[in-house]
């Protein structure tokens, strides 16, 4: 059997689903929360929820980096663009709403906003046009932050600065445990973020919160096995940190990437869209790299913004409190073609994933 087929073996899928059904409680509902847009895609695209018994619920936490970026930081990017600075960003950042306007709105009005595939592209673009001022809007979790850090440490051209908006996943998971009526019974931790930060970053969840936590990969079988591993722990009444994604994640994580991140960034408190201020949850460029910090260099600092347009329930979707279908705007006023909230904009947003899947 070829490599791909072995990871998608239907007989294994059937067996693990049987195990899930045998292990799931008969009465009480077990709520398992993941915090990754790609996990939500796998679960929705392959219809995994339909394979689970009614007592097992899988909800999506704040795992979409574009969605959690607060309006105030989009407003900062918009302000830079309106100052005549060429703003470079990833594709799905373009349409994310700021308080009033998105980067796409100001691009339509003539501002210089350009999509790049990587931080490396942003550097090359600035090198090619040395007389133009550039700012790269650096969004993403710990998966993306090392690439921004790497480019800053390489001393990019002086006409490039970085609007750093990187966020950290473990503080968001801690936030979810503080939401009184959410009652999570276990976490599926995000595989890609974990390749960087390692298993060790989640040690606090079983230890301090008695929360079963399993790091999982992105094949449908990875997710099903992670669900089974959590159900087993719940049944045994234990809380352990387990690794389902052994082919990519180690206890320590990618040490080289961590060293590069911590050379370039300090950790600070930060605002998350609709979720409020979370302690030690974002990266900021260290003082010594202030010449590359777009906020310092161009004197832009916006701290307040309007995160939610009227009626938008993104803040509740992002913590798994409601399903996208429970938002009054979903597929009515808010569609992938005309998104209202951030969760409908990004390819990793729960609303967009549900909308695209229902259209298939």
């Amino acid at each position: 059997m070829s490599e791909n087929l072995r990871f998608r073996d239907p007989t294994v899928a059937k067996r693990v689903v049987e195990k899930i059904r045998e292990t799931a409680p008969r009465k009480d509902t077990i709520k398992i929360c993941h915090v990754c847009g790609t996990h939500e895609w796998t679960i929705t695209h392959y219809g995994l929820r339909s394979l689970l018994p009614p007592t097992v619920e899988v909800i999506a936490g704040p795992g979409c980096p574009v969605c959690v970026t607060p309006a105030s930081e989009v407003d900062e990017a918009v302000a830079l663009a309106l100052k005549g600075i060429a703003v470079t960003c990833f594709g799905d950042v373009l349409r994310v709403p700021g308080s009033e306007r998105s980067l796409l709105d100001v691009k339509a009005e003539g501002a210089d906003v350009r999509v790049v595939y990587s931080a490396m592209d942003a550097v090359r673009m600035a090198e090619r046009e040395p007389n133009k001022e550039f700012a790269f809007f650096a969004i993403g979790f710990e998966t993306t932050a090392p690439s921004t850090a790497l480019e800053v440490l390489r001393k990019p051209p002086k006409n490039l600065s970085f609007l750093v908006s990187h966020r950290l996943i473990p503080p968001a998971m801690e936030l979810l445990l503080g939401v009184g009526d959410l009652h999570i019974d276990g976490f599926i931790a995000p595989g890609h973020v974990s390749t960087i930060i390692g298993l060790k970053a989640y040690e606090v969840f079983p230890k301090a919160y008695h929360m079963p936590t399993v790091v999982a990969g992105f094949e449908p079988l990875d997710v099903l096995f992670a669900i089974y591993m959590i159900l087993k722990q719940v049944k045994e009444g234990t809380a352990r940190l387990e690794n389902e994604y052994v082919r990519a994640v180690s206890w320590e994580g990618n040490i080289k990437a961590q060293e590069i991140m911590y050379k370039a960034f300090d950790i600070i408190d930060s605002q998350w869209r609709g979720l409020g201020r979370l302690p030690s949850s974002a990266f900021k460029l260290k003082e010594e790299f202030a010449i590359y910090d777009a906020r310092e260099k161009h004197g832009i600092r916006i701290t307040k913004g309007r995160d939610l347009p009227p009626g938008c329930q993104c803040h509740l979707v992002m913590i798994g409190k409601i399903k996208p279908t429970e938002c009054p705007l979903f597929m009515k006023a808010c569609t992938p073609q005309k998104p209202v909230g951030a969760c409908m904009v990004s390819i990793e947003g729960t609303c967009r994933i549900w909308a695209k899947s229902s259209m298939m």
Partner: protein
Amino acid sequence: MAIPAKVVKIQDGKAQVDFGEGVLREVDISLVEVKVGEYVLVHAGYAIQALSQEEAEETLRLWRELLEAESSHGTK
């Protein structure tokens, strides 16, 4: 999102990789230790982790173990 790709050629901290579509793309491999012929997980133009054949086998072994452990205990 990160996608696995096979490293085809390495030069100056950059690699030409194949995502399985036969077209070679350039990615930065400064964050990982990797050799030609091995697989990497690529996110936004950077390899974030090297994937080895042994570790892939490790996943399949873990799955087998999970399925077998439970059946030997039986279900109540």
